[in-house]
């Protein structure tokens, strides 16, 4: 089943129809439930001297959130892999759990390209569960991310790179034309830029 067929199936599931009276009556019922008073604007103006507690909480949460974001940006800026964000890693972990649950010991890599994600599965469920790794490679043709495991290979510039994680959690990319580690000061190799992070132990 391809995406188009799936979409067609999904769209074919109808929402149960309601009678015409229902649609005529619904706006009236909502209107009856609207807060009573001199009008919406008036109510807000009347309460504007003392902002609702919800608004205050929202403001406090926004400030706290902004502090967290700034802290994270500073931390990331100091990090060699600044362009592999905490959000990317969190998403990768979530995604890994999802695909591993669906295809246990069968996932070789998930490749994220501009055209969308692509799942690479082994023919048999015999992929050994090395440490999961997120690798991003940007070059003249754009960026690709690989969610894969230590011990697997990823394609790069007509070559294959072995993905390995050392005891200190650093990611090594090793091929015929390249040997790079996430511990290096520079993430650039020629026209290419690399970032990689170990996602911890396999789930």
């Amino acid at each position: 089943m391809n995406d188009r067929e799936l979409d067609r199936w999904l769209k074919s599931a109808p929402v149960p129809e309601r009678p015409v009276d229902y649609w005529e009556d619904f706006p009236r019922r909502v209107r009856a439930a609207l807060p009573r008073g001199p009008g919406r604007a008036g109510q807000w103006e009347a309460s504007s001297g003392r902002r609702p507690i919800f608004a205050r909480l929202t403001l406090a949460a926004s400030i706290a959130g902004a502090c967290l974001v700034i802290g994270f940006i500073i931390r990331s800026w100091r990090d060699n892999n600044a362009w592999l964000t905490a959000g990317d890693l969190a998403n990768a972990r979530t995604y890994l759990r999802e695909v591993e649950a669906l295809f246990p010991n069968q996932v070789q890599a998930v490749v994220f390209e501009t055209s969308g994600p692509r799942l690479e599965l082994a023919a048999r469920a015999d992929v050994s569960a090395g440490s999961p790794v997120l690798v991003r490679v940007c070059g003249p043709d754009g960026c690709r991310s690989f969610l894969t495991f230590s011990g697997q290979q990823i394609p790069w510039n007509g070559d294959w790179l072995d993905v390995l994680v050392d005891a200190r959690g650093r990611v090594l990319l090793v091929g015929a034309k390249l040997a790079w580690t996430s511990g290096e000061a520079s993430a650039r190799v020629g026209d290419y830029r690399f970032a990689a992070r170990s996602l911890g132990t396999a789930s």
Partner: protein
Amino acid sequence: MGAEHDEREGIRLSREGRAEAFSELIRQHQRMIHSLTYRMTGSLAEAEDLAQDTFLRAWQHLDSFQGEAKFSTWLCRIAMNTCLNWRRREGRRNEVQQTWANDAQVDGAPHPAPAPASELNQRVQAALNRLPVKQRAAIVLTIHEEMNHAEAAHALGCSEATISWRLFAARTKLKRWLKTEVIDE
């Protein structure tokens, strides 16, 4: 152009507290919001309550609508948040799944019986109900409401990459479940 102008005028009047103008906005968007809340809950009664909550919240927070996105997208965002909050509050996911798994006994007491849906369609809705709620939201917005990824991202308050991610995960599961259903048939 005319419809857009009417909508902007309706929003302006509603902001001034004119409830009849807001009723017109409800009329324009009620089917879309009901459809969305139904697909998120799988229940007609819940869909009705959540649609009503959505419009009440929209009325209360109309000042926060800046016009950066379409009004319908803004409403969808409220509806989605309402549905997600409901999910968290009620923790009814399993119950609803169970209901759907048993049969499509749509809670019809106050409403007339829905148009008969094919068994396959019921299975599709049941499969949709099995999805984690955020993945389901991504499917509902992009497939059923035909939003693009940017609009869906705005409605769900996340990045387009996250939408893409959730869609891929959801599609992978749905294909697997529905394929099994077809083979079982």
